[in-house]
């Protein structure tokens, strides 16, 4: 038990060190972890994996870029002209490519 606690604390402090170097608000990280756990499993194991993943993503892109990728992902639900404009070209492609490669890297690191 004690060993586990120490492990947990060290994980937290390490995570803390990593986050200080990027501009992701805690709310954005929490939302990612929440969504990630919801779509995988709501347990301690995935809380760690998902937290690791968002920290890895945050190392590879700015929050501004992430927010843009998030907006594009949201728009890709629809099929109207508005959404069409954001599917595959220009900024959209750039942002999504960056997000996908950050996601791929985070998967290698964390899962």
């Amino acid at each position, binding site marked *: 038990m004690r060993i586990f606690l120490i492990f947990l604390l060290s994980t937290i402090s390490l995570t803390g060190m990593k986050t200080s170097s990027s501009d992701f*608000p805690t709310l954005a990280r929490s*939302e*990612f*972890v*929440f*969504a*990630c756990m*919801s*779509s*995988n499993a*709501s347990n301690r194991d995935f809380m760690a994996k*998902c937290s690791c*993943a968002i920290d890895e993503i945050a190392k590879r892109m700015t929050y501004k870029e992430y*927010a*843009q*990728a*998030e*907006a594009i*992902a*949201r*728009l*890709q*639900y*629809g099929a*109207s*002209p*508005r*959404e*069409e*404009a*954001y599917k*595959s*070209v*220009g*900024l959209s492609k*750039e942002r999504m490519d960056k*997000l996908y490669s950050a*996601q791929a890297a*985070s*998967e290698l690191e964390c*899962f």
Partner: protein
Amino acid sequence: MSILKKSIVASAALALPFAVSANSKLEKMMKDPNQWVQQSGDYAGHRYSELDQINKSNVGSLKVAWTFSTGVLRGHEGGPLVIGDTMYVHTAIPNIVYALDLNDNQRIIWKYNPVKGGKYPGGETMDRVISVMCCDNVNRGVNYHPNGTIVLHAADTSVIALDAKTGKEKWITTNLHAGTGKYGVSASTGSGQPFIIKDTVGVGCSGAEFGVRCNWTSYDIKSGKRLWRAYSMGPDKDMLVDPNKTTSMLKPIGKDSSLKTWPGDSWKIGGGSIWGFYGYDSKLNTLYYGTGNPSTWNPVVRPGDNKWSMTINARNPDNGMAKWLYQMTPYDEWDYDGVNEMILVDMKVKGKNRQALVHFDRNGFAYTMDRASGELLVAEKYDPAVNWATHVDMKTGRPQVVDRYSTAHQGEDVNTTNICPAALGTKDQQPAAYDRMSGLFMVPTNHVCMDYEPFKVDYVAGNAYVGATLSMYPAPGGTHLGNFIGWDADKGKIVWSNPEPFSVWSGAMATAGGITFYGTLEGYAKAVESKTGKELFSFKTPSGIIGNFMSYTHKGKQYVGILSGVGGWAGIGLAAGLTDPTAGLGAVGAYSALSSHTALGGVLTVFALP
């Protein structure tokens, strides 16, 4: 042509008699800045609040006062109303309406859902309506009549009058049936606001992608009885025009002005939808609205001007008769719907006092007209990227189309490239605001171009009738897809322009605090100085913003409200893709798991000073 119409008069609620005419009572309420009683703030569509507690010196410290989750995903356009101490909030499909008690921590007084047992009042299933609904299931909001009625224009085109106090149905009538496939009314949907004038409520219709023939229909507010209907195209009597009295460019339009401009009877599926934000001038007793694109998107099959698609309509709201019409884009080849908002401003134009109408069209031109006579005063590009026409000929009112960007000139199955703007228009429905202090118009815009390839399609009732393949991208020379601009409608010039990474798809609101609010697709609620465009405030809401800002006071304090909500919840897509790329967006299992934790969906964020 007879239109299949079914009226259901539910619970015969009694309308209270009132001494003052409803029109003047509603107009009086619009002048009270403590309330927000109409989607556009007022009949003139100014979207201007006289409140100045929140102003350019303190807006930077604005904080979230409270939030409200609508529980409905997808696009949340329009905005809430505030009548007295009650706020009315609507949602995307299924078009729920909530009444919130501002005196009691936004407690839900009543909640109304028009979909019962999976069906809308008109009898169509919600799934069928969604299948023919363009654009993220949006609805542009409810409106209020001073006899205590909230009116909802639901997605199946049902017009629903609700008791503002209890949420009980007073009457329901289905305007046009969605998805029934009846010739000429197939697949019409409702997304535009119901527009209250005097003791009537008028609605347009959506669905030009489905070969509908759209119209404006006016109903009696007390009974729901149909009063008149004016089609966007067809015989004179269907359009409610007088060949000798109705004018265009100051001249009578003459007999069969529409029929002559369509091959055969193709006007019967001619489109011309109406779903933007409208204007009304009580002194001139004139209603103003714009009509959308002609069907199909393939222009080759419908040579002619396709009147009166793409047209500003000025009509008498008592009987529907058209006073004047102005077609902005004759023979549309790009889907530049003319539905955008009509802003009525008394202003100097070229040194002369005018009762003006200002309209930022999808086609990239901003028009200033004399709203009494229909005279064209100014027509200038409000995005320098616009290239499909060189200019508008001020004598004829016709845009001078460039062959290189004419999809009809290039022909069927030819990909016409680098057309600006894209089909989204330089601006879509997202309404601009008029800043009464600086005299400038605050305009949310798109900065997107496209390739457009028309192809032949056969019309099948109730099915999409598009007939063009499009791809869109940022305008040349940049990577940003939008601008928020300050516009001088007299000179026809951009005064300032703020680039935005995405199209600005939210409605603007200017205030007497010298500031203007708008939102972005990333979800940022922003405030800028109206005179200069300088950014003073930015806050990230939970989703993208395509709703319209509004302001009101409660117990003497000013609040600013905005709906956010676009598409699905991105968090899930970004996160779900991690372990299973196929489980990305729209993962049903994940959503059901989430719904037990939190109310997802559109969120109303209300700001106030600390």
